């Protein structure tokens, strides 16, 4: 992987961190607000089912996670375990895909 791609990954991680910062705040604020009168699955589904706004919000949340986590993990694997090279990059691409798939499965689960 060349230095340009590595720089791109660095920028992508910072940008996704900024998105995550906002997403986590909105998510937590919604949770605090939503559990005031008790928490039930029906209430959550009532809010999210068919709501395009929540679909877009949580899809963005999942995308930011799928970008942010593998890039951070890449540094951890390199620096702590000395694992570098193509096998690590492919492993992390698969991990990013797994995060995205699991995340979107959950998002669609409460939207549809």
């Amino acid at each position: 992987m060349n230095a340009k791609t590595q720089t791109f990954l660095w920028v992508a991680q910072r940008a996704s961190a900024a998105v995550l910062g906002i997403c986590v705040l909105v998510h937590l604020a919604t949770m605090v607000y939503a559990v005031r009168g008790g928490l039930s699955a029906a209430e959550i589904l009532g809010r999210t089912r068919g709501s395009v706004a929540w679909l877009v919000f949580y899809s963005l949340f999942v995308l930011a996670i799928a970008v942010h986590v593998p890039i951070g993990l890449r540094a951890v694997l390199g620096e702590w375990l000395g694992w570098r090279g193509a096998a690590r990059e492919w492993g992390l691409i698969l991990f990013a895909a797994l995060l995205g798939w699991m995340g979107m499965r959950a998002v669609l689960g409460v939207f549809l």
Partner: protein
Amino acid sequence: MMQVKVWRGKADGAFQEFEVQRHASQTVLDVVTYIQRALDPTLAYRFACRVGMCGSCAMTVNGVARWTCRTHVDKVVKNDQMEIAPLRNLPVIRDLVTDMREFFDKWAKAKGQFSGALTKNEDFQKVKPDSPARVAVDAGIECIGCAVCYSSCDVVSWNPEYLGPAALNRAWTLVKDERDTHSMDRLRAVAGDAGCHSCHTHMSCTERCPKQISPTAAIAGLKREVSLALFRKTL
């Protein structure tokens, strides 16, 4: 009197204990010199100027990298005991002497050489002393190449390819040098995993630099410039 443990041998060596008389205004380098001249002439160590200019005498004193010629014993001794070891993150040649090649090779890899456009037949290029670029250069230009920052950097110990704080600081002073013509090559050289983007901003380099330089600030500047170059598609 104080007990001084000094590293002997290569990486797999061991500490040897010496008893040394305390004196007023005694430096750590004075202690090492006394041991070599009076107690054990086989002790290897490196020094030159003795006044904090040359960057030769850095060692690890009680676990912290320091310039020994300007470090008073009073400041670092604990319960009349002191431990002196070679710098971390560099191969040990013998006793307190490390092989600095890797450290300076990385300056070259970071394109730490100035390359201007003018020849000696032309007039000097004027640089305004109070221009923002020159002020940024001033903040990092007094580096003496002692490798205290390099020895204190955890990222260097985790990633042997990492250029390190001193080389990146040098690159930054040249990136901000209005006369230099190779800034883009330099930004390419310092980008990515081996360069500025691996810095964790622990700031050990900034805390330990004997010249009060902040390589962390220089590295942050490089991250900014490299990112801008990426967006401008000039990287």
